[in-house]
């Protein structure tokens, strides 16, 4: 993982949602609400996932790519209704399902960077996701 560089700004090609600040949970792995999560307890549940066992609730997830099925489009909305949801989703590449899910579930999202964002952001860094500016900023 990358070192913490306070003030460093990363620009995304795709952006959606409101400005949020929080702790980054980072892994070079994929994301599917259906395949990877225990949505009741708010943890990554697929044993092979690099974040297996860790809580995603209230975190800014910084992952490589959106994976798998179409269910995530509904599931982000359902997770939002119970408050068991990441604060924002940040991907190197995103598929339509996660974008549609973020639109429906009102979750901030950034995707598409000039560098591997999972290597650039340190796990545990404090970051700001600003979809209006299409930026991800390290703030602590």
């Amino acid at each position: 993982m990358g070192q913490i560089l306070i003030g460093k700004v990363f620009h995304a090609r795709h952006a959606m949602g409101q400005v949020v600040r929080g702790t980054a949970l980072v892994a070079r792995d994929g994301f599917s609400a259906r395949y990877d999560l225990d949505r009741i307890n708010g943890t990554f549940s697929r044993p092979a996932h690099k974040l297996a066992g860790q809580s995603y609730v209230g975190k800014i997830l910084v992952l490589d790519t959106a994976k798998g099925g179409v269910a995530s489009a509904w599931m982000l909305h359902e997770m939002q209704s119970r408050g068991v949801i990441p604060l924002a989703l940040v991907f190197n590449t995103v598929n339509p399902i996660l974008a549609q899910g973020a639109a429906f579930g009102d979750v901030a999202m950034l995707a598409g960077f000039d560098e591997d964002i999972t290597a650039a952001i340190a796990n545990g860094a404090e970051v700001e996701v600003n979809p209006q500016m299409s930026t991800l900023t390290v703030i602590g």
Partner: protein
Amino acid sequence: MKLTSEEQDILAGKAGPLPQTALRHQVKVGDFFGADDLVPVSQAHIMADTESLGEAGVQWLEQLASIAEGQRGVRIPTITDPRGTDFAYASYLGQTGAMVDLERRAIAAFVKLGVTMTDTCINYQTIQAPIHNEHVAFGDTGVVIYSNSICGARSNFEGGPSALAAGLTGRTPRYGFHLPDARRATLKIRVEFTPDTLNDWGALGGVIGRLAGNYWAVPAIEGIEGAPRSDQLKHFGAAMASFGSIALFHIAGLTPEAGKIADVAAADLPTHRVTRADIDTLQKSYRTDDRVDVVVFSAPQLSLFELRDLAALCDNRRFIVPLLAVTSPQVKPDSDRAGYTARIENAGGIVMSGMCFYQSYAREISEAKGWKRLATNSAKLVNILGGYGYQPMMASMEACVDAAVSGKLGRS
């Protein structure tokens, strides 16, 4: 996005609140992906099992359905992916009254919206396959990859809310695989052998999906011999979509856009070689035990021909482990009439319809039934069920049936 005058009227609410809500969602997604405009679509297919929707999603649907009749209907044929249960077997599966009630409420809402409850993920085999260049808005990744690749249709993965939006507006944002440039190959795969069994086809799809790695990757595949059957390509595509989020592949000399590999792929694309050993490795990686708690054939739903093959394997057998075969509501009556259902059930198996195992509260089923070690011939199913607390294991249909008889999955 550039909107026509009709679309501007919809956005202004002149066509009523429902198309307005739908188009707002579509503009948000279209803007995210930089779509120039919307493209008319001829069909929509909605993935909307209630495990995914939850109470919040069903309430949202019910709000839409409460709009006055005449102002709430879909504009184009709009059909559904598998539901979260087969009502006839909900109790057997340990599904609760609350789950069943949520299903009934979701169905009632969809019917009020004019959606046709086909409850199938093999609509390209059973309802109406799209044709080359037909723009559609399909949910279920297996449906999309088959329709794009084998039929030559044009669709992105459309999640439930977006597919419903397409049904309500008759269009979808024009980005991704609606655009010719996005359909060109991004990598080449040289396959060293042509599989035969469905599990091998699924495993090959899984290996290629992992290699390709993300939604925007388009593999162009060389080395497939002969003309694979629809069921083989069904498992191949569903696994590729599941393992890699892939929505389109080309097979040289077979799929409609790839008469020659050069039609879809630049000569200097990176090339990966896939061998028999690669698909064996993938399947063996799931073999964590010899004992089996349940055998499941599902994901995608079985065709009539798969049920025919399964029935033949069940003759004169007696299962000591539950064996579930899941098909569509369109295929089930034919299976009944042909006697396949009875032959499977005589051995102790169960044929369900209108659901798919992983879309039916699989975690709760596992807890209610004590099922952990699950054998299947579906690569897609093993890829999904690990996250639901199962130990999924992959084998041929024959080996899975043998496991239902003996309780043990043989080593091949």
